């Protein structure tokens, strides 16, 4: 752990969890995003990508190829740890609890399981103003409601500039739903994340 970061870190200030939602065009965008996060990145990053229910571990493998951080697929009650990238598994909703993930097989939300809204809303509840929500390329409106909840609870809302997205529908809807969202191209998002203050890593109590 870099001592400068510890010296700057103030309890309650900074971000602990980044949640990212995407569907169509998401693989290329996510590969760019994770490639830009340095080994010293200390927030936890949870990725929700719409995909077929029988998808295997390929997404995790493709992201791991590009990332300096460890990428894992979420399992029920897996701890949320700083400096790790988590991929939501297909055919489950991924919910964020304080300190760990929970999975659910509740009905798809607007045809999607995983639903970006479900993950974002639970992140907003559990991590409040320490959450960063990011909506990337996609061909539906999932994520808008959840991003608004993150913003309403004091978290940071970021949307990929629709003009730079492979499919603009999802970021357009999100930017419309969340007035305070920062809209920027993908490389801008990566640079911005690297500059954001991270929270103080805290271990979950057993």
């Amino acid at each position, binding site marked *: 752990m870099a001592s400068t970061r510890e010296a700057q870190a103030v309890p309650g200030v900074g971000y602990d969890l980044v949640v990212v939602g995407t569907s169509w065009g998401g693989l290329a965008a996510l590969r760019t995003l994770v490639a830009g996060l340095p080994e010293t990145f200390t927030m936890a990053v949870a990725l929700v990508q719409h995909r077929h229910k029988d998808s295997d571990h390929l997404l995790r493998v493709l992201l791991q190829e590009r990332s300096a951080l460890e990428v894992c697929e979420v*399992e029920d009650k897996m701890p949320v740890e700083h400096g790790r990238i988590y991929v939501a598994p297909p055919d489950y909703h991924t*919910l964020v*609890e304080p300190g760990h993930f929970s999975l*659910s097989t509740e009905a798809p939300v607007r045809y999607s399981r995983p639903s970006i809204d*479900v993950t974002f809303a639970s992140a907003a*509840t559990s991590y409040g103003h320490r959450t960063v929500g990011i909506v990337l390329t996609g061909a539906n409106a999932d994520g808008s409601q959840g991003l608004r909840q993150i913003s309403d609870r004091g978290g940071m809302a970021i949307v990929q500039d629709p003009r730079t997205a492979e499919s603009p529908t999802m970021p357009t809807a999100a930017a419309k739903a969340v007035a305070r969202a920062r809209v920027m191209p993908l490389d801008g998002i990566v640079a911005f994340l690297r500059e954001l203050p991270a929270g103080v890593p805290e271990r979950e109590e057993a």
Partner: protein
Amino acid sequence: MAVPVSSEASLAGAPLTYNPDLERLEIELLLEGVFRHYGFDFRAYAYASIRRRLWKRVEGEGLRTISGLQDRILHDPEAMERLLLDLSVNVTAMFRDPSFYKEFREQVVPLLRTYPFIRIWHAGCSTGEEVFSMAILLEEEGLYDRARLYATDINDVVLQRAKQGIFPLDRMQEYTENYLRAGGKHSFSQYYTAKYDGALFSPALTRNIVFSQHNLVTDRSFSEFHVIFCRNVLIYFDKTLQNRVHSLFYDSLVMFGIMALGSKESLKFSQYEPCYEKLSATEKLYRKVH
């Protein structure tokens, strides 16, 4: 978690400001009320998911707050029935996760052959799709006549449906594909008769299944088993309750008995990991070794 709420806002009936601590208090009070008045214990369910479903019911009832929902369900049993439906997740399929059943055939069946009699517990069996899948698998492996399957669920309504052995006809194509990918040895259609929009499964399959109501939260073990299936049930419990149920399963398994979890569940995050060894690199099959 400090999201300050001005006291004026909450007192004056102005638009409600979101306060996560207050919300948690309301949810805890509601669940305590449901438990003490109706006897259903959801107090140790995973919070994020139960919160989501309670808010869905708040909206469904046209209410504004969790406390408003508490008032309604305590005074209106029909509202409680609606809430119960929201809170019971009954998503299941025959040969769900085919690779799991294939691995079960290859890794577990040879172990089961060494027993003269096999007791299997399907904990949280819901409408029975996975129990019937197991009956078919054991029949094809020539083990069914020395097996007894105990299928339990907290919810008597789904158990009654499970007993009937009728599943939606429009899902048979999906189930047939699952069956084949799971290593099925015959033709799947030989196991059921199409009737209106239902597929009635052969009554011969239920000859060794015992259906009964059992509550994982409050009830104790009722036998010793060689295999316990509990797939995608524990995900709805919080960590404390999960550990308690794992303790129940541990006590209910014979030494070298098999514990089968859902494909995205793991013993890794429970206290019982050291008691088991992994039987498969890819599927959640564990063997009790300590």
